[in-house]
């Protein structure tokens, strides 16, 4: 697992470097980009549907 720092240009948050090609999942957590690669334990998937299931 790696992290990538951020920069802010014109009120838009961006990574300071390119995302690595080896990444399998990237999450911006509010402060930095967290890069998950092969072999890293992935975080649980977010619950996307908050509506009541029919």
């Amino acid at each position, binding site marked *: 697992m790696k992290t990538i720092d951020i920069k802010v240009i014109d*009120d838009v948050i*961006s990574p300071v470097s*390119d*995302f690595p090609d080896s990444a399998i999942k990237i999450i*911006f957590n*509010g*402060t930095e980009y967290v890069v998950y690669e092969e072999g890293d334990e992935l975080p649980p998937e*977010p619950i*996307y549907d908050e509506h009541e299931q029919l």
Partner: protein
Amino acid sequence: MSAFLDETGTLITVDHSNPLPVALVAGFTSLNDGELKTASYANPLPVTVVTTNYTEEELPDADSVAAGTEIFNTTYQVKMRSNGTSWEWLGIGKSTWADKPATAPLGQIICITDIGENGSLWRGNGAKWVRLTQIRFFDLASSVALTGSTAEVTLATISIPASLIGAKGKVKLYPLFSATNNANNKTVRVRLGGSNGYVLQTSGFAQLSALVIIRNFNSESVQKVATGMTSGLGLSTTSLNTLAINTAAATTIEITGQLANGADTLTLESLFVEIV
């Protein structure tokens, strides 16, 4: 039996009833009595090919050599023949986008090795290089999720080399998003050179699949982009976004996301980009 007259008018006859054995050329195969035979390389015929190598800069003027002279251009990795006035390529050259020939002779084809999934073919029209097919230019390697912030956050950045799009070119972006399905707004933006092209602010969705087209309008510095529509296609009372980004210079396309509630999640699951 066959017959023909030689140059002196003498009738020559040939008896084919007992044909000579046919020798196999090294590396070729043939059926002999139903059995596959492959010739060996043990005793190849001596072949000597002499071709002079030149870099593009070292290339002599085509009218200073005899018509029919052939050389090998080491810069673009292609054999060339002089027609007495210019050099004609005898195959497909290759180059990176940045180092391609400044002139694009009519009909000559070049493989641009660093543009497209495994390179791309371009053909000269006498003035510039024109792509022969649409190009899959970019494919996102992994999903990029946004949470914990209400700021606008970059989810993907695509570098566009100078003059790649062309005056009549279009960039087609196919993003696929997932999001927390609730009443909180999520905003998706596609920016060209820092200017908003496509903007969609909406709520109540768990997935969004869109097609966003950035169109150059017969100029490398005039673009129009449909905006505000959920899928990027269809009707809208919103005006087109008109941009004035000079794509004759290198620029970028950015996909950004923004949450109204930082507890939600917006994920760019996939994105691929074509240039047509």
